[in-house]
């Protein structure tokens, strides 16, 4: 057992902190800190700055820009990035399809896609969920039928996050409807979002924003060389993809940043000179959240050190479950600190209500998704109960 970082890790940590806080434009970082929405351009700019420094895809094979870091080093990278308010590289590219192509793609696919994916020249979206399937991913019904050198795709995806910005989609399709199990007979296709027959319909969310989409496929023709790996093995790749990224599954650094900011806001005097943080009940809530985040971060560090075989460590379910709970709790705290100001959500940065207070309710509402998307907390509990506890 050893708490201290090795001098090598400590040096890496301070280099990363230096990089993130000085090389990424303050305008981007303050957008993140204010809880404002990042534009597509800001996200691309940030990732390209990281990629130019070799810091966009450290989890990839070295040959494609990876770093061969230890899990702890990747954790440091992720935490420093989040704490600095730097947007993480787009998950669909860096954590999802990139590693899948690197592991299962053909050499041609690697060369064609990986550099562009790392540099966010291609913006990927994920075509997994379907209406009526919800958490039951494997029940998907979008089908692809082989026609010569092409696959013809028909069906519908939903919850496609940031699909409205996407250039390409990685899409699970049913290629063998007669497979004995629903997990079999699924393949993974890659195709451009402007292929004829693809229609994107953004879904308005309860915070008034748009970040997920319905995507419809009508006779979409996909060249056969855009199938990943083997036909009918898509479910394996999907599992690899979903389990691949343990580091970052719990938004620890981002939540720490939000909590530190909430503390800052609670320390500013109100109109009568009082400070919210001086209320011992609120102060106690902050202290408790801070402590629970410490426990979560330590657990993330502990898990980061375990197993490297690419399989989902079921303990990552703890991180997802608890991480999203705390993320939501901190967003709730911000709303409570905002008090009556919280209803000024539409003031758009103007007026006398502070920006953070304006964003507090939309953020709170938006983050209800955290315990639903990417494997709901009910799914996480099921995984813990069955896989870890054997129940």
């Amino acid at each position, binding site marked *: 057992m050893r708490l201290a970082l090795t001098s090598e890790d400590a040096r890496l940590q301070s280099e990363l902190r230096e990089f993130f806080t000085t090389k990424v434009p303050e305008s981007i970082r303050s957008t993140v800190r204010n809880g404002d929405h990042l534009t597509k351009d800001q996200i691309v700019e940030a990732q390209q700055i990281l990629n130019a420094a070799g810091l966009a895809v450290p989890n990839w094979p070295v040959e494609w820009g990876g770093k061969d870091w230890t899990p702890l080093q990747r954790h440091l990278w992720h935490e420093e990035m989040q704490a600095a308010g730097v947007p993480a590289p787009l998950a669909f590219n860096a954590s999802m399809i990139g590693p899948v192509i690197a592991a299962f793609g053909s050499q041609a696919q690697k060369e064609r896609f990986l550099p562009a994916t790392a540099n966010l020249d291609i913006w990927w979206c994920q075509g997994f969920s379907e209406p009526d399937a919800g958490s039951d991913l494997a029940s998907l019904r979008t089908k692809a039928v082989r026609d010569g050198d092409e696959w013809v795709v028909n069906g519908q995806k939903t919850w496609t996050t940031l699909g409205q910005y996407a250039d390409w989609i990685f899409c699970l399709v049913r290629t063998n409807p007669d497979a004995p199990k629903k997990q079999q007979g699924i393949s993974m296709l890659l195709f451009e979002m402007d292929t004829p027959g693809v229609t994107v319909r953004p*879904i308005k*969310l*309860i915070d008034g924003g748009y970040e997920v989409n319905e995507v419809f496929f009508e006779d979409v023709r996909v060249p056969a060389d855009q199938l990943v790996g083997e036909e009918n093995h898509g479910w394996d790749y999907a599992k690899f993809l979903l389990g691949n990224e343990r580091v970052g599954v719990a938004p620890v650094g981002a939540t720490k940043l939000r909590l530190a900011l909430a503390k800052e806001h609670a320390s*500013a005097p*109100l*109109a009568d000179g009082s400070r919210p943080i001086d209320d011992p009940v609120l102060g106690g809530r902050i202290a408790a959240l801070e402590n629970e985040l410490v426990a979560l971060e330590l657990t993330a560090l502990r898990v980061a050190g375990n197993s490297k075989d690419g399989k989902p460590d079921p303990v990552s379910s703890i991180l997802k479950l608890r991480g999203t709970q705390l993320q939501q709790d901190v967003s709730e705290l911000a709303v409570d600190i905002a*008090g009556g100001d919280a209803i*000024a959500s539409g003031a758009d940065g103007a007026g006398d209500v502070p920006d953070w207070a304006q964003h507090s309710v*939309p953020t709170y509402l938006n983050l209800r998704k955290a315990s*639903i998307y990417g494997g709901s907390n009910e799914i996480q509990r099921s995984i813990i109960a069955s896989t870890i506890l054997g129940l």
Partner: protein
Amino acid sequence: MDFNLDNEQIALRDAVRSLLAASADGREKVVATEPGWDREVWGRIAEMGLLGLTLPEEYDGAGAGAIELTIVAQEIGRVLTPEPYLDVVAAAELVLAAGTDEQKADLLPRIASGETVAVIAHAEPRAPFGTTAYGVTATEGADGWTLSGVKEPVRHAGSADVLLVSADAGDQTRVFVVDASAAGVARTTYATPDEAYAARIVLDGAAAVPLGDAGEEALAGSFACSQVALAAEALGAMETAVGTTVEYLKTRKQFGVTLSKFQALTFRAADMYVSLELARSMVLWSTMSLAERGVDPVVASRVQAEVSRTARHIGQEAIQLHGGIGMTAEASIGHYSARLTVLERTLGTGAQHLAALTASVEDHGMVELLG
């Protein structure tokens, strides 16, 4: 002690329910643009006598009481009626409680008829909840009073004709009547998280007339009444949220069966129902207390503390049990959660009301509800 509505009250509830149901379909379109509510519906609400429901007959009111008011509030909550009903009733009640005879005779019939929309402008940026005004200053000059400063965010101020503005009048906070379209009154309107509109009001030497002798005491009384009514509105919204969620569990299929087959989910629905019923008891009790014993800030804090807790519980669980669908604006449930989120911090957060109760916790041994 009797928790049941009488026949007349049931008739009122049913009439309001069908009136509001008739306009519920048009809601989505109405809230999409300013002012976020429909003057035609407003007219029908006025016609039914609801705007003057609690006003004396001499001001064209119906002379009803707190019970009737919370009946309407609950129905509003059930269908998320966007019209600024409780906002305007609160203003009318404040005029009734503290205005001069002239002011009452001038304003109240106009409000009751729906002709004039009046709201209380008390909120200020970064002000703690309470009855004191910090950010607007009232100055008495030769031509009378003028107000300067900022009120924000004030719900429905953009569509109001008359503003009842609290201001720092030197030695005390006083309430003033301000013509919303007068010189020196600038309003910037924006959306709130629950699909309504609020405004930033910049006052710059705006002409103002004191509302009788209304000061902090009158505001405290007004807030305590409104807190009970808002709790009733929240109760109505929670009722629908729980009902909608239960229906969803019965119909939505996942892994080949309806969600109602998952015990963990049905147990959580049961907990939501428990919260709902506890909140209902508090709302009914605070209503009866208001009707029979008059304003009591402790009772108002009790119902607000309880409803804040349950509104949060139900608002959060309703979305979670809906899963991804619950996140979309297309489904109704998220709007209920959003409205509940706003309601639980209107006129004080749950934490503030609990702090008020904490301050008085040594004033009694056991809480006596009866006798």
